[in-house]
């Protein structure tokens, strides 16, 4: 079969090429592989046209439930995405290029990533950013490893209010490295500062917190930063970038490293990926940063250009002594993040953050009006908050899913004594009508 749309050679061309090489068949080119090592089976089904392929993919997508009314977050959020994000990141000059090793013919990617780094620095209030990591959870783990290198210490303290998936990834990353991870159990949905003070000594490399935290609570970690610094440790703040349109930035609080997941910045939910992780830090730590960093410079004639810089930190040069093993990052999704942030802009991000909070406060008030339902009151919230139900939350959430409403994330699987608690997320995409529908559905579910 001459199926040549992706492998273009005609039989005549193949013959010509073989004769130039001096072999009689393509098979002969595989002669370095000993016969006894050759594959005995290959069970991939026969191929098909692109039309049949797409039809198959449609039927797979249709096996998922259709549109779910989302009041769930947990690290990924259902936000608006301006059309420009898809169209511009969908330019093949961006998405079919690779890591910009050759700067002269990669200035498009390099300048865009420099602009991305700038946006992340301005958002987080810190000095330097890299060109992206894989996701928020791995960024958190990389920040911990960075703190271990900076301080030469071997203990990481993590607030139990940090996203449980990030904490799990952190433990996986550090498991083999002779590093102790101390987790502080939450107190009323907040960092237990007294317990933290008890473990904060000169063996601690970093304290990791999240704002808003997994229960939705917003805290000011300014005084915490001072305590952490007094102990000679670094403060790592994991943040939800949309909230930074409104909330105090990690830099303003005195954090040394900020990390987070960039999904909310113009990237679809897409069943969990791709998104991107971001990491920003104070300038003094730049040589300990993981991953690619883009720097500004000039050519011989003084024209401005951008290059991969400080590559002596990286695996292709330093090998096992590199600051991280990361090679491919999530560049295209970081580009989407930049396009998103440049589209909403300075005012738009603030407006979007306010919208999120206004909608969430409206939902909170309405939901709290349901008999038997109470709200976690220990701190103000942004667009997520914790509800206590008169029934096990898992049961309620499972029931509402059947009505097409993802009402919230039950906390029972993540925290002790939280079987009746769930976190509700309300983004700017949710209309008043949809929020009212949630209230009605939840009320009905609790009456049964």
């Amino acid at each position: 079969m001459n199926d040549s749309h992706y492998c273009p050679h005609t039989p005549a061309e193949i013959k010509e090429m073989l004769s130039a090489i001096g072999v009689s068949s393509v098979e002969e080119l595989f002669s370095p592989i000993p016969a006894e090592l050759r594959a005995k089976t290959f069970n991939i089904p026969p191929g098909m046209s692109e039309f049949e392929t797409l039809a198959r993919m449609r039927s797979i997508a249709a096996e998922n439930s259709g549109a779910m009314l989302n009041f769930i977050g947990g690290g990924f959020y259902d936000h608006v995405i301006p059309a420009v994000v898809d169209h511009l990141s969908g330019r093949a000059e961006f998405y079919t290029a690779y890591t910009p090793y050759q700067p002269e013919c990669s200035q498009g990617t390099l300048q865009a990533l420099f602009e991305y780094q700038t946006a992340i620095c301005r958002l987080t209030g810190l000095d330097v950013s890299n060109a992206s990591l894989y996701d928020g959870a791995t960024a958190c783990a990389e920040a911990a490893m960075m703190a271990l290198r900076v301080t030469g210490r071997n203990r990481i303290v993590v607030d139990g209010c940090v996203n449980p998936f990030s904490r799990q990834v952190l433990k996986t990353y550090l498991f083999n490295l002779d590093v102790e991870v101390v987790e502080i159990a939450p107190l009323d949905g907040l960092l237990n500062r007294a317990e933290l003070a008890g473990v904060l000594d000169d063996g601690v490399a970093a304290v990791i917190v999240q704002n808003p935290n997994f229960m939705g609570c917003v805290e000011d970690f300014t005084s915490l930063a001072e305590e952490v610094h007094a102990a000679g440790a670094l403060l790592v703040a994991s943040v939800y970038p949309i909230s930074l349109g409104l909330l105090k930035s990690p830099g303003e609080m005195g954090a040394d490293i900020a990390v987070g997941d960039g999904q909310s910045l113009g990237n679809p939910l897409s069943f969990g990926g791709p998104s991107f992780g971001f990491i920003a830090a104070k300038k003094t730590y730049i040589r300990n940063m993981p991953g690619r960093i883009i720097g500004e410079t000039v050519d011989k004639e003084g024209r401005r250009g951008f290059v991969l810089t400080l590559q002596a930190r990286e695996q292709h040069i330093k090998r096992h002594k590199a600051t991280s093993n990361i090679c491919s990052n999530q560049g295209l999704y970081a580009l989407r993040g930049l396009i998103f942030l440049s589209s909403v802009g300075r005012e738009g991000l603030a407006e979007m953050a306010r919208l999120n909070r206004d909608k969430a406060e409206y939902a909170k008030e309405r939901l709290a009006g349901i008999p038997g339902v109470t709200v976690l009151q220990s701190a103000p919230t942004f667009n997520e908050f914790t509800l206590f139900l008169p029934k096990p939350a898992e049961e309620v959430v499972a029931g509402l899913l059947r009505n097409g409403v993802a009402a919230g994330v039950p906390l029972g699987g993540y925290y002790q004594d939280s079987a009746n608690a769930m976190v509700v997320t309300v983004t700017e995409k949710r209309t008043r009508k949809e929020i009212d529908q949630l209230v009605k559905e939840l009320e009905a579910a609790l009456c049964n």
Partner: protein
Amino acid sequence: MQLIYEKSIPGRKGVKLPASDVPTAAPLPENLLRGEKAGLAEVSEMDLVRHFTNLSRRNFSVDTNFYPLGSCTMKYNAKVLENAAALFAPFHPMTALLPQGNDFCQGTLGMLYDLGQMLADITGMDEVTTQPLAGAHGEMTGIMLIAAYHKAKGNRKRYVLVPDSSHGTNPASAAMAGYEIITVPTAPYGDMDIELFKKAMNDEVAAVMMTCPNTLGLFNPHIKEISDIAHSHDALMYYDGANLNAIMGKVKPGDIGFDVIHVNLHKTFGTPHGGGGPGAGPVGVKKGLIPFLPCPRIVMDDDGRFGLETANPGSIGRTASFFGNFGVMVKAYAYIIMLGREGLIRASEQAVLNANYIKEKLKPWYDVPYDMTCMHECVFSASRQLKQGVHAIDIAKYLIDRGYHPPTVYFPLIVKEAIMIEPTETESKATLDAFIEVMIEAAKTAESNPQALLEAPLTMPIGRLDETKAAREQNVCCLV
């Protein structure tokens, strides 16, 4: 070109957000608020579109230029894959983790499961996790699985052994799993020196990491012997799947002694490289390592329903937020079912044909340090050109002027002035012939007018950049 921040005008907006339909909430306490709004760009939609469109035009890419970047498999990325991925944009990953939420995610969980099965068949493994987010992430996951295996058996292991031709990610990933590195030199026949390997091998070696074909593009004829020796010390064999594009349907790593493999979906399985990512690095393992796979693990019950196993006591834990770079997986899945059995075999065959064709045609002009039948890529040395003062990088820059993305240069590290060419199977003979002509021209120019190569590129918006200045000044963020 101006930065987008240099085009900003205070108060300008690129998008209109929906008006609020709820009351304004009482303000947050002052100490929780940021002092000043973040200094993001303020441009109109038109200005934004023009900015990024013009930026994109400053890139070479697979769709615009031949891109024979060795070790990166820059094959054509079928457009239909983009359409396929868009179908899955609305699905929230958290849904699957809600109580009974898997009922609503049968399509997405099932696709991940099926992709795992197909990759297991292609690689000869027993089970695949799709969680790792890139090749290096897969390596780290794979070595952690090996560490868990040894720990469970009570083995005391300290080292991971790699050939000196290996990708830098191999030793870097092994170090992240807590191992020290032993590097074994390459023999004149172009593969890890088998005698030196035997000497280096000991009971404290946890794993041998290999790329096969290796980064010289050569298939290691001693591979079975190496894996037998490794296994006799209870060291496991790790297969770096970066070069899998050479052998689909021809050899299965699991059949020839490998225990763990990662696959780069963005290389072999035709998903775009995105200007640096996202990739995806699913990891396949032999049966004995299944208990250690990351959670949540996608499982199928007796009725053919898909679910998640979230609490597996032996698991190394979670390696990423959710189920991996799902959108990349959709594209790889569509690629595999579209090419099918014959298409995948044909892809590997023509990738190998193209690399050997380039090698033979350029051999009279460039030194080939390890001259034998290669697989999907071939490695030259510019050592002959160096006599005229021309380095591999100068040839690379000349190629840019002629409209070609340069091959990988200075890698593998064991080849002086290395030029590593991976044409892939999707390039036509006409493209290869034109490229070969330009490479010959470069070799001739190196003899007749070396200065011309040293000055390249001349046709780009910028010339060669001062990398020392970039590293010294560390301007990584716009200060305007």
